[in-house]
């Protein structure tokens, strides 16, 4: 019983780790500025918080503030960041629709299929932190079965327990690595520079294929020095200078 209490205490300590202190009061200050119509000041406070913190509510409010001061492209980038942290939120979706309605270029990436949507929904529940705790719990179980096997001799239950917990441990460890990797290496970006040109190859000597307007969401396929190969729809693809895009990065 004592062991269970110790383990639970450790888990609670670790979960409490993700709730930072201090930022909520700053967040409230930002909200107050926003309510009073001081959008620039609100934005400054939100951006200051965002230097070390990432929260979908924060990115949502940053998106709102950018919208109010007329920077629609950055507004969109922040809504997309909020959407990454909280997919399927109706209010984010709604605001993105309003933003897309205001942008000149209404090129849309193909919609995700059912399987991808299901996977995103699953991932929104099984966050990286939940995965970390899960790995720790499985490791405890693995450790328990190993101890029992060593102490009590070869019992099938313990052998299967070790085997299953080991497989789960491997699976969730690799999945954890994959999720962390995906979190930091996002493949999506938004065009930020006006009159950006898509070329047939990485370099200015290549043919111009399209001009693409700011605000278009694109997917990165490949990167080559200062050039990025992107696709903006099933028909539009090409190379663009890196400085013309901004990744929907949560780093």
């Amino acid at each position, binding site marked *: 019983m004592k062991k269970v209490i110790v383990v639970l205490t450790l888990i609670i300590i670790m979960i409490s*780790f*993700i*709730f930072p202190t201090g930022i909520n009061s700053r967040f409230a200050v930002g909200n107050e500025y926003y309510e009073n119509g001081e959008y620039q000041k609100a934005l400054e406070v939100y951006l200051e918080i965002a230097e070390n*913190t990432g929260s979908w509510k924060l990115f949502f409010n940053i998106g709102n503030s950018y919208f109010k001061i007329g920077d629609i492209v950055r507004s969109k980038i922040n809504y997309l960041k909020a959407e990454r942290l909280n997919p399927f939120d109706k209010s984010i979706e709604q605001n993105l629709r*309003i933003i897309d*309605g205001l942008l000149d270029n209404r090129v849309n990436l193909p919609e995700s299929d059912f399987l991808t949507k299901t996977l995103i929904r699953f991932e929104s529940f099984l966050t990286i932190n939940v995965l970390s705790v899960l790995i720790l719990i499985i*490791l405890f179980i693995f450790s328990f079965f190993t101890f029992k096997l060593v102490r009590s001799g070869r019992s099938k239950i313990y052998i299967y327990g070790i085997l299953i917990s080991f497989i789960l441990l491997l699976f969730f460890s690799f999945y954890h690595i994959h999720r962390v990797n995906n979190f930091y290496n996002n493949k999506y970006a938004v065009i930020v520079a006006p009159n950006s040109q898509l070329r047939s190859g990485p370099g200015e000597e290549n043919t111009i294929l399209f001009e693409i307007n700011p605000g278009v969401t694109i997917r990165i396929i490949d990167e080559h020095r200062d050039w990025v190969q992107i696709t903006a729809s099933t028909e539009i*693809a090409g190379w663009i200078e890196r400085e013309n895009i901004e990744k929907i990065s*949560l780093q």
Partner: protein
Amino acid sequence: MKKYLAILFFLISIIPLDSADVEFTASVDAEMIGLEDYLIYTITFKGIQNPVQPDLSEIGDFNVIQTSRSSEFRFINGVSSSYVNFLYYLAPLKEGALVIPPLKYVHNNNIFKTQGFKIVVVKGNIKKIAPKNNRRSMFDLDEDLSPFKSFRSAPQEIDVKLRAKISKKLALVGEQLIYRILLYSRNRIESVNLISGQSFPGFWQEWYPVSKSIDGASEVIDGKNYQVYEIRKAALFPSKEGELLIPSVRFELSLSDNSFSFFSTPRKITRSTNSIRISAENLSGNSINLPVGRLNITAKSDKNSIDINELLTITVEVKGFGNIKMLKIPEFKNGKFFKVFPSKITRKTSFKDNGIFGNVITEVPVSFKEPGVVIIPSLEFKYYDPLESEIKISKSRELSINVTGNREEYLSDINPVSGGISKIGSDIDFIKKGTIKDQKRFIYKSVLFRIVLFLVFMVSLSFPIYEYFIKSHILGNKKYIKKRVVQSLLKKLDNLKEYGDVFQIIEGYLEVKTGMRRSEINNNRIENLFYSSGISKNDTEEFLRIRTESELSRFSPSTIKTFSQFKIEITELKNLIKRIDLKLK
């Protein structure tokens, strides 16, 4: 189980089908060229529409002089495929064996790679220029480009021509016309490759996607039976009035040459279509800017009843035949009781036999100012119907929305602790309030988590390590056991209180040390063993004496009377055992 495996294998086997249709290959026209020659490097995409031109900046030993792009069909064994070729004319920069590295291309997250080439470059000019073909067939409009003509003993008669057709020569500005390019052939065609531009000034044009399989039809012209293929099709919309010219379009055709060997290279010829002139006129009077086609407008809302704090989405759709991409959709204006937000517009087109059919969908977010029944008026859409030659009006229906609840003041009454407003359909005026948690702060990065994880891992690792490695290999090692036996013996002797117990301790020691059973241990055996181990006679005799006296002391009074005598005896025994243990095998 077998059933599941079968399903799994089936699923695995069908996954690569899509990528199997896609090919990315490269070829060169020569493996040895002169320094003054150029090399034609061809990159071919099969099954990829609009591929991005590959980047050749990595080819350091060659200069790219010129590039060109072409697309083509190939009919191979009755199956046609679409190809896109990129031709690079490369000039070598130096002599020697130069390398063209493999190229990489990413398509649908699949990576395709061409082979690399080794090109030998020698001094001067060694490339032979293909002889021109002076012979012309009855339908020839351009020269035959085949470089293999001079090798043929009996070239086949070429009977191939192209014709362009338009659905209407007198049209309205914005009216949809169908332009078709037909190939008439009495020869076997392997591929059709467009080599001229296909942009027609004065028209908005939508080319039909190149079909993967084209069925031919038979047609008799001047008593000759031709196979007719529709190789290109486009919807053209005149964009200005007056006489407009559709210029001729040029193709390169590959003919299958039956007179040559099975592996012969196809014979290539070029053909052009006829140009066409059409006359376009504007609609008269007020209807000058109306869209032309057969169109219809509808409007619907996602809900009939809504809370005042939510947004309603009205979907307006215009669909039918016409230039969908240029269509302007009528918009809702802000009403007394509702506010209209910027809309999202999506356009979809599909290619039908009789023209382009499509729809324009506008999703309009609407918010309401007061509760009650709000009528959103109908939208009116005017267009000109060329088939019935009259202006037509299409109307969407009125929408009646029941708005309930009370309008919340912007954030004024919100209690931050409750989590703020996160209502469905909230617009940009609403912000998120309440507490936030750092979703970038991960547990796995914390030192505490890493320590706990490491400790649990080490503990779980230590159980089997102790049991199966330390216990059996280190603690169970014979040398280690023997070493431990003498230490254990000396320890036991230190704690000994009865002289009679010496006998048992010594026997235990000998049992572990020599492997003899207790029943086998006697003075004779010990003497022989000690002798063979090179232990001195005195030590052997002394050891046997102590053993015997200890054994006897269990049954009769011992010669050792005092505790100090006992201690001296034990100390001597310990020294004796240390000496013996060093030599005992």
